[in-house]
């Protein structure tokens, strides 16, 4: 058993535990904090997959920016503890059945995937998904979409300010 497998097991277990906490915690604040830790452990799994950039983005964007928004909304709406669990209604039973069905379908598909993983050359692994590679590609090959995205962000900022500011 190598260190990667141990790390993966640890991250996977912790991800599942915190994801469970998100669902079962009574207080929305606890749920939100558990979501943060879910994102962190998920980022660990991304690192094990050599997806460094995705891992950093996961922490920056999801665990950072989006969670702050979540907490703001919880604070603004002043959400307290949720009431005790409701009675099973038709919608809840149908929702539960759909979830179980989805997982069953996923399990069937995953079992069909051959066990031997595709062999990757170490060279591809070492550079693939790193921030250096991504930066090189973004600023050369993908320059047009990149500049279009910067235009998009500028437009979105101006638009948000125009819509949000006092009535014209």
């Amino acid at each position, binding site marked *: 058993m190598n260190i990667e497998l141990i790390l993966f097991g640890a991250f996977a277990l912790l991800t599942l535990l915190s994801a469970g906490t998100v669902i079962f915690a009574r207080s929305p604040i606890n749920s939100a904090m558990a979501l943060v830790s879910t994102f962190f452990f998920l980022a660990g799994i991304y690192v094990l997959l050599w997806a460094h950039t995705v891992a950093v983005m996961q922490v920056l964007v999801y665990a950072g920016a989006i969670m702050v928004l979540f907490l703001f909304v919880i604070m603004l709406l002043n959400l307290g503890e949720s009431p005790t669990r409701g009675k099973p209604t038709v919608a809840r039973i149908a929702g539960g059945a759909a979830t179980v069905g989805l997982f069953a379908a996923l399990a069937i598909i995953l079992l069909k995937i051959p066990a031997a993983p595709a062999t990757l050359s170490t060279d591809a692994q070492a550079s693939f998904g790193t921030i250096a590679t991504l930066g090189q590609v973004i600023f*050369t090959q993908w320059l*047009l979409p990149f500049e279009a995205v910067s*235009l998009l962000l500028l*437009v979105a900022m*101006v638009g*948000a300010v*125009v*819509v949000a500011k006092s009535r014209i």
Partner: protein
Amino acid sequence: MTLPNLSLADFLPLLPTIIMVVGASILLLSEVFLSTTASRSYQAVLTVATAVAAGAVALTTMFEPPQEVMLGFGVLDPFSSFLTFVVCVGLALATLSSVSFLRKRGAERGEFYALMLFATAGMSLLAMSNELITLFINIEVLSIATYALTSYLRRGTRPSEAGFKYFILGAFSSAVLLYGAALLYGATGTTHLTAMAGPLSTALSSQPGLVYAGIILVGAGFAFKVAAVPFHMWTPDVYEGAPTPVTALMSAGVKAAAFAAMVRVFFMVGKGVDPAMLLTLFSVLAFLTMVAGNLLAIPQRNVKRMLAYSSIAHAGYLLVGVAALFVTGPGEQFRLLGASALTGGTPLDLARAEALRGILYYLLAYTFSAVGAFAIVSVLERREDEEKGTAWDLERFSGLAQRKPGWAFAMAAFMLSLGGIPPTIGFMSKLLIFQAAVDAGLIGLTIVGVLSSAAGVYYYLRVVVYMFMRPVPEGAQALEKSWSTELALVLSTAAVVILGIIPGPIMGWLEQASSIFGQ
């Protein structure tokens, strides 16, 4: 890994867009540094100058052969250059008509013009996009700018409702489009439209479901953007609630750019799959859109809403032209009219070139007519009546010929042009589209198109009847004049009438230039 080098020359094809973005940035900064001046007319002048400069640059590139731009992520071809020109015309006219509209409401701001410029820059980039991710980003650039413009004036409930509806449905349609694009990527392994044809035909035999789902989802996403039936529900509410100059830009520019992107994507996809499937898809869309758009417009007494439904109907005629791009078969069935001035290539190529020319000319014609009509609507409406819902009532037009003969003449020209009656540019453009459709063998669709546009004449002429044959209502408000709106009206009326009688110059350009990359 070898990385490409980009030189300054690689950015030159993007010059129209760069001009517009720089102009928009200056406008944003002018609001910070120059906002103490009481008059903000210079902002409109700057916007129009920027639009004219960008349009002129686009015209100079129109006769160059198609070429890849920025490593194939975009293309510069006559098709995209002409489209950039069309959206710049639309922007200039909409800006001219917005000056007095905004001043009356005390809402002249640099951000308004900057967002108009950003939206137009997105449209120009969208017409050039040759890669699915770039295409999606540019759709978002123009959409987000128009969402913000829709709810720019937030007095009363209508603008908020319009902005919210447009945002939710626009985001939904973008997601549908993106999902379809992801499926196409999954099937072919590339997002470059040029490289897609080969892998697409392989994928079609191995996993047809993926390809078909991708094509249908992308098609549905575009159908939302061009407001084709049955994806048109948002159009009347959004067009009615948005500030009228913004509605003008939306109906002309956003539609033109979305059509350009749709034509480019499906032209390339059509090389990999059986074009008969695309022909069926677009024929059905065109049929539904023409018939439903015209029928829904007939009962409208609200002129702004009527123009919204009419823009749906016009999307239908354009879709006939798009459908004509995908005909295949023996040469005998083509060129039934045999009157085309286009030469060279097989009959099939000629039929396609004709359809492309028809689409481009139609987009230009619709830009002049619709932006002009919305300019008249914007000078007649008053803010106080918006909540009552009478701001755009047909009664507003009663006796306009006695009060303002020039405006009434202009509106009559726009209405005749939208209805497709000679001697207007609208007639010429319908003629070109239907000629292309007949030459492509789409006789049934052409008959439906002609009949439904005949039905459309009813609601266009009703406005003319109100203007010329009804008396001036009691207690009618005095109408204010403004040089900029007058200029927009004079320019678009002149274009509508002169290009309807002498279509030569533009037709000449299009005969040389109706080619799309990869044709």
